[in-house]
């Protein structure tokens, strides 16, 4: 009997703790302690016990009844409290408790987007030196010594003895310095993406002494102008939007032949011509078919392989994107937290 009483008691307590309303609680009370309740019915068997056991059993019964009643009372209180405390107190307009959220620099965000776009069509990102030999930045790219075309690059030089073979040491003025380095790895075909810091002696609203470029280099057995056009149009539509169109125009770079200047339609007027763009087109950057002399400098046979390359400003494409109306490029590197925390 004692065991049976114990199991009824445990069952009662666990049921009480699960109740969600006073009604439920009352039902439980009747189920166990009512006139036909489980405890009451079991108690009716008390007289059947040997006389000497009855007092002890009586005490146990009372204890069980007390515990159950006590539990019911406690539960009753807590149900009332829950009701009065939680439901009316929930103010959903109060600010949430936020985990910390910092900010990645706009340039990092642009680099990630550019990288993702190009890796979709099989480009692999690589890193090359930022301080580089003249050989990789100019001479191997078909810039003869002291050539006037070098003037356009506004290059910073490092105070260091020039190497007899590789020339002086400089801050890379363009990401094209990675081209011959990539070819030297000796793995063909190539589909390389180089995004890096670049440096030029210029500072005004549209130039900072340090900026970033992204460079694509593709070298393979049948790479044509049409591949270059397709690749850059793929980028333009992915990055700027499918309603934008790109075009190429003749230009000149020492390291490509033919060379192109790439334009995209203005985001405001979509090519019709407006106050902002004048003729409907915005200049994006340069591109071209890799010059045979550059392939030779990278130990690639120009009779077997052809290639194309392009190199554009990260900040430039960032600023040409809808929504970012930055009128002074230098703000990107002033590191004003009120600016950085906007993005």
């Amino acid at each position, binding site marked *: 009997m004692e065991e049976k009483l114990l199991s009824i008691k445990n069952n009662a307590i666990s049921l009480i703790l699960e109740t969600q309303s006073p009604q439920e609680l009352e039902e439980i009370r009747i189920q166990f302690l009512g006139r036909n309740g489980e405890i009451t019915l079991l108690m009716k068997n008390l007289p059947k016990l040997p006389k000497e056991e009855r007092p002890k059993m009586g005490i146990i019964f009372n204890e069980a009844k007390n515990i159950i009643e006590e539990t019911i009372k406690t539960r009753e209180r807590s149900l009332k409290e829950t009701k009065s405390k939680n439901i009316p107190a929930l103010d959903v307009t109060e600010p949430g408790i936020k985990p910390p959220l910092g900010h990645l620099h706009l340039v990092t965000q642009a680099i990630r987007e550019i990288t993702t776009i190009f890796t979709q069509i099989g480009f692999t990102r690589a890193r090359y030196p*930022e301080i580089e030999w003249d050989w990789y930045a100019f001479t191997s790219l078909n810039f003869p010594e002291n050539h006037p*075309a070098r003037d356009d690059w506004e290059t910073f030089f490092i105070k260091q003895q020039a190497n007899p073979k590789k020339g002086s040491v400089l801050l890379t003025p363009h990401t094209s310095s990675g081209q011959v380095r990539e070819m030297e790895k000796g793995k063909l075909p190539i589909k390389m993406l180089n995004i890096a810091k670049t440096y030029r002696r210029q500072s005004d609203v549209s130039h900072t002494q340090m900026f970033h470029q992204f460079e694509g280099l593709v070298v393979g057995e049948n790479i044509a102008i049409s591949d270059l056009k397709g690749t850059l149009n793929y980028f333009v539509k992915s990055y700027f939007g499918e309603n934008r169109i790109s075009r190429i125009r003749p230009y000149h770079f020492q390291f490509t032949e*033919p060379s192109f200047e790439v334009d995209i339609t203005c985001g405001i007027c979509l090519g019709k011509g407006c106050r902002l763009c004048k003729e409907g087109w915005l200049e994006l950057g340069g591109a071209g078919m890799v010059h045979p002399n550059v392939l030779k400098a990278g130990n690639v046979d120009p009779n077997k392989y052809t290639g194309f390359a392009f190199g554009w400003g990260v900040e430039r494409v960032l600023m040409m994107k809808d929504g970012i109306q930055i009128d002074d490029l230098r703000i990107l590197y002033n*590191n004003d937290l009120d600016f950085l925390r906007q993005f």
Partner: protein
Amino acid sequence: MNIKILDSWLREYLKTSANPKKIAEKLSLTSVSVERIEKYNNDFVYDIEVTTNRSEMMSIIGLAQEAATALKQSGIDATFIKREFNLPNIRLQKSPTLTIKFDEKLVNRISAVIMEIKIKESPKYVKERLEASGIRSLNNVIDITNYVMREIGHPTHVFDYDRLSNHTLIIRESKKGEQMKTLDGKEYTLSGGDIIADNGKGEIVDLISIMGTANSVVTNSTKRILFFIDNVDPHRLRKTSMEHGIRTEAVILNEKGINPERTSEALARGIELFQTLADGEIVSEIIDLYPNPSKETVIMLSQEKINKIIGIEIPIQKSMDILTSLGFLVSEQQGILHVTVPARMTGNDMLIPEDLIEEIARIYGYENIPDTLPSFQTATYFHLDKNDFYWEDHLKDALKYWGFTEVYTYPMVSEVLYEGPIDNAVTIENPLTDDMVYMRRTLIPSLLQVIKENQDHEIIKLFELANIYEKNNEELPKQSLKLAGVIHKPNASFWGVKGIIEQLLADLEIKNATFKQLSDRYGAMVVINKDEIGTVEILDNSTVTFELDFSLIIKYATVKKVYKQISKYPPIVEDLAVIARASVQTGELMDAIRNQSELIQEVSLLDKYQDTRTFHIIYQSYDKNLKDNEVGEIREKILKVLRAKFSARLKG
């Protein structure tokens, strides 16, 4: 370089019904870039960017021929009005003499003539054309030299013949230390090797192809001129020009290497203009010294190569038509074009088949070439954990989600921000500004600078991933990526930053990093195995920094995951409050505790208050339920060791 020309001037050589806008559009898409068209009185002025390889486009004639070809290809009527500029055939009995001597290494060609002229004002159209072109009108004689330069594309010069007292010009290399005064009154001391004209008495009378000198230049009283067109070694004059910062329009053109065939054209056109605008009379024979005339060249070009590079099939007849229209002579044999480049069209950008393919493709129209994507995939295997861009993103994201703001600061710094012996700095030879001269060897000063400039913010957490630079003897400077950060707030905590580094590393599956006290600074060295990967430093009460070597972190980072079986038996947890001297390091206590039994799964510091450190210990077995007495034995062992090693004891 840019050239500005009037529409009406262009139309002296171009007959077309196309309006300026159409001409500009066609030129831009197939040839040179017309950056602007502006109204100029009743005329229009084109502002055109010409690339360094196409100096022949720095002329009315070059542009007219190009425009005619481009317009015709797109079905618009257009004709290039070609004029022959022939030198007059002069035979004179008693002409003024002039002796010219030169070294063939320096000079390609000299074309010259002596004329009697009258100095006066230029007619209105000349003035207008020059001024629209950005050239100030001075007098008819000087204006003619500039007019010819614009029209033909070759710079020209005039001397006052009577000021060349010896009637001699010796074109030679300058000697070091020679002095001269240019026509604008500036004095220069030459460093040697410059190309100059000497009047036979050792005096410099011209800085050839760059600028005239004060002692020989035309004045208002000039009666006889020497009209002089020189074509010399572009590399040498570029060196002189750059060295002395003399960047006249003449040298900017001449240094690009102008085809010497054009000097006689310029001379003929100039004579014509002196005759009509300056009452000019030729008083000498025509001088034309041309020791090594340019020769036509032949480039072989296969149809297969044309199609391979352009990416579509171009009918061979189309290629031939385009090249012919541009002035080449073309014949074909079995799919191979033999293209003759006339002497006046030869140059550095007309040497290889690709140069001709560019001519064909641009006139054919880039818009007519379809878009394709390269058809191959590179077959290099990809390993995520060897891809440092993956880890770069990973680390940056973690810091971002812990509330850090990423900055990009300039890698070039001032002496103040350099922080270190300045003689060892990687230094810029030609800095633009004083605050960007040295390539930095640590990112921290730049980050602190950002904090200084953002004083209005109370709590600042910054990070940057960028290179630092160190001298490396004769080799390229060492360039290594660093991940640096700073926390700036009232009572910034060392352990706050340490915890960030521990979690950053843990996220890369690096679990064995240790922190060793720095002897010379207030902070710790972060060590993995034997590699010192960076430091954490307390700078002051409110500033704690860190700087870690990116490639050393990546060396240990892995995407490999190791599964450890989960115990079926519940852990037993207890907290031990230990009293120890302040000099006893918490790390030592924790190591000592951990080493007492393999059943200790985890030891952490729960709390530190005065001399009491409370450790949270988790005991767990993989084989059985632990009994109280088993845990008790381990606890006794722990207390015994703590007492013996550190004189530490249990609290209470």
